[in-house]
């Protein structure tokens, strides 16, 4: 099967091919600093515009996030698959590290913003969504989409920068999946979501209580994984003593990327908003579908929920749009600089799996009010029960689909 098999973590960094034509080599040397300078210039220009500091920060955080995702291969599905198929727990430990770091960071921020979590209010724009059967379904469908298309939405975005032949189809599929999600939203809302409770755990446990409990759960999950760690081989970081080489060649260990994700998540929440990658995709899909007459006349209750809001965009540049743009461009820079930009001509398998998996991803992210980043990461960090529930359903959906796919020979 020529499908986009989830990338495996290479034991050693790849060496750039020696036989690159000079033109390509030139691009490799000139393009990364050029695009990086362009990103810096764009951020500086935005920060000088009235009201542009938020946009500039979004672009910067997006770029940092893109570099971290690309360098550490922070991809929920790849890590889950590595564990299920190859028994390698390092990636999952990286995801747990991201959650632990972000939980601690959010607790500090939230404690300052809302000293008393006990009232009726929720922390501003934190991704705390309704918990019910629809969320479980959304998570499971999202997970299935990950298994079919080879990764989640954020990973498709950073892989777009690596020249993945599947990512463009998966992202188009995601947009279509959102439209499908809007079409099915009203019945789901009326039957179930409207009555689903929005549960913010710090309200019941306090900040310290939630942080303690969440870290204990993460430790409980990490314990069996730690036991399965492979014997330490010469780590990539120590290859040679050149720190630049460690940064730009090979991959970072996922735990390092995870810690960076937790830090970026906290800083982004402090200054701009919770991390999320689907608000822009969803908002634009809603705009396009509305213009094409494919939307229900009204989406009941949708805009009153927290999460990756898909409210119709009025401005050309939005914080989330710039975040996603920064992510893709910076991942492209990082991939190019490390010789991991390997564009491939898409074949029909890529297109089919991308579109179909993307459809599942989009439906799941719309119905679950966010994806593995917005609902799972940002939600859990903020103390949302919805983040945990979505996470469990997502990993179960991805694992189940992978199992079924391997049994039938459709997935590898």
């Amino acid at each position, binding site marked *: 099967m020529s499908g986009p098999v989830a990338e495996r973590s290479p034991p050693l960094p790849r060496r750039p091919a020696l036989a690159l034509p000079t033109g390509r080599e030139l691009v490799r040397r000139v393009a990364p600093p050029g695009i990086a300078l362009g990103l810096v210039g764009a951020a500086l220009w935005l920060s000088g515009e009235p009201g542009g500091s938020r946009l500039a920060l979004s672009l910067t955080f997006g770029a940092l996030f893109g570099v971290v995702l690309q360098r550490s291969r922070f991809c929920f599905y790849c890590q889950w698959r590595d564990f299920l198929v190859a028994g390698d727990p390092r990636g999952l430990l990286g995801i747990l590290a991201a959650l632990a770091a972000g939980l601690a960071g959010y607790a500090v921020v939230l404690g300052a913003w809302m000293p008393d979590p006990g009232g009726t*209010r929720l922390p501003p724009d934190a991704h705390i969504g309704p918990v019910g059967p629809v969320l479980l379904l959304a998570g499971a469908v999202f997970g299935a989409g990950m298994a079919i298309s080879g990764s989640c939405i954020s990973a498709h975005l950073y892989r777009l920068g690596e020249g993945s032949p599947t990512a463009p189809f998966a992202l188009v599929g995601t947009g279509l999946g959102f439209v499908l999600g809007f079409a099915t939203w009203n019945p789901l809302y009326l039957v179930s979501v409207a009555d689903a409770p929005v549960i913010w755990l710090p309200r019941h446990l306090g900040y310290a209580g939630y942080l303690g409990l969440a870290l204990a759960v993460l430790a409980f999950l990490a314990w069996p994984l730690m036991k399965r760690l492979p014997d330490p081989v010469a780590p990539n970081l120590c290859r040679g003593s050149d720190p630049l080489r460690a940064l730009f060649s090979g991959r970072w260990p996922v735990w390092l990327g995870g810690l960076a994700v937790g830090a970026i998540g906290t800083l982004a929440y402090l*200054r701009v908003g919770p991390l999320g990658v689907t608000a822009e995709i969803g908002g634009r899909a809603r705009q396009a579908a509305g213009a094409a007459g494919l939307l229900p006349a009204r989406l009941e209750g949708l805009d009153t929920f927290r999460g990756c809001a898909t409210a119709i965009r009025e401005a050309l540049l939005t914080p989330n749009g710039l975040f996603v743009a920064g992510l893709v461009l910076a991942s492209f820079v990082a991939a190019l600089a490390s010789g991991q930009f390997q564009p491939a001509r898409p074949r029909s398998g890529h297109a089919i799996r991308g579109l179909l998996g993307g459809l599942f991803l989009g439906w799941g992210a719309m119905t679950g009010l966010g994806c593995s980043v917005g609902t799972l990461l940002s939600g859990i960090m903020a103390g949302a029960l919805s983040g945990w529930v979505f996470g469990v359903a997502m990993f179960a959906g991805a694992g189940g689909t992978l199992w079924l796919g391997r049994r039938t020979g459709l997935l590898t």
Partner: protein
Amino acid sequence: MPRLSTSLLAILVGVSAPGAALAAQEPPTPQQTAGARTEAKASPLVSTEWLEKNLDAKGLRIVEVSVEPGVFERGHIPGAQNVVWHTDLVETVSRDIASREKFTALARRLGIDKDTTVVLYGDNNNWFAAWGAWVLAQYGLVDNVKLLDGGRKKWEAEKRPLDTRSAEVAASSFAAPAPSPAFRARFADVLAVAKRERDEQILDIRSPDEFSGKVIAPPGVQELAIRAGHIPGSVNVPWAKAVNPDGTLKSPAELKTLYAAAGIDGSKPIITSCRIGERSSHSWFVLSRVLGYPVRNYDGSWTEYGNAVGVPVVNLAGTVWGGK
């Protein structure tokens, strides 16, 4: 407890109450003849410069009322406290201003008493801060309540400092009186004017397209009316005409000229109205507090009047409800 310690310091060095400083800040408001209201003793506006110098003044409470969530938390004027328009200043089930009990609890939490100077500010050109001033006025907090001229936008544009920590203030023992009807117009009042049974003026501050009936509401808003147009006898001066490009209010002389051109000069009682009564509280503040005219705000506005059965409506655009 920075506020407490500076307050103590202020007492020790014998700094005078901020009211005196406030009075010196702007030219005195024009005298007003009609109506039985108290005249504003000092300016209802404070400048960003004055506020930055007086952040630690004794007896001053700074309150942000912004509509966008997270704006306050990610950086507010040092010492400011947050009021959420959607939950704190209104009833969330029935359509009404916050009840007496709810408002009492809010004012106590904010440490606001009858003699406290309150500076309100917010995003969106102070729309919601002005709504806050209007609610405070109904509960007896009128003359000591000021708007920060230019609001959040000007404070940020001038790169003045912001803080992300929450202020800790001592609660007050304020007890809200029954809301005064002097600041609020109800449906029956407006209908009486529309039917020419009462000689008052209605100032509709919506956009010209909403006023003419070309559109029922601005794009993207959920709360609509079944009919388009405006209340008979009302005049249209969009709220934004009262504001300079930097967000500050125009000078009293300019404001007088602006409204006089529409026939509003304070000689008759005025009712301000818009779609849900929130933009119109901005114009209510300008007319009542800055110009000293007798004004009530009609918070039912077009979403009440335009949905009412059997009332006269003017529809200049000729938009007809229903099918073709």
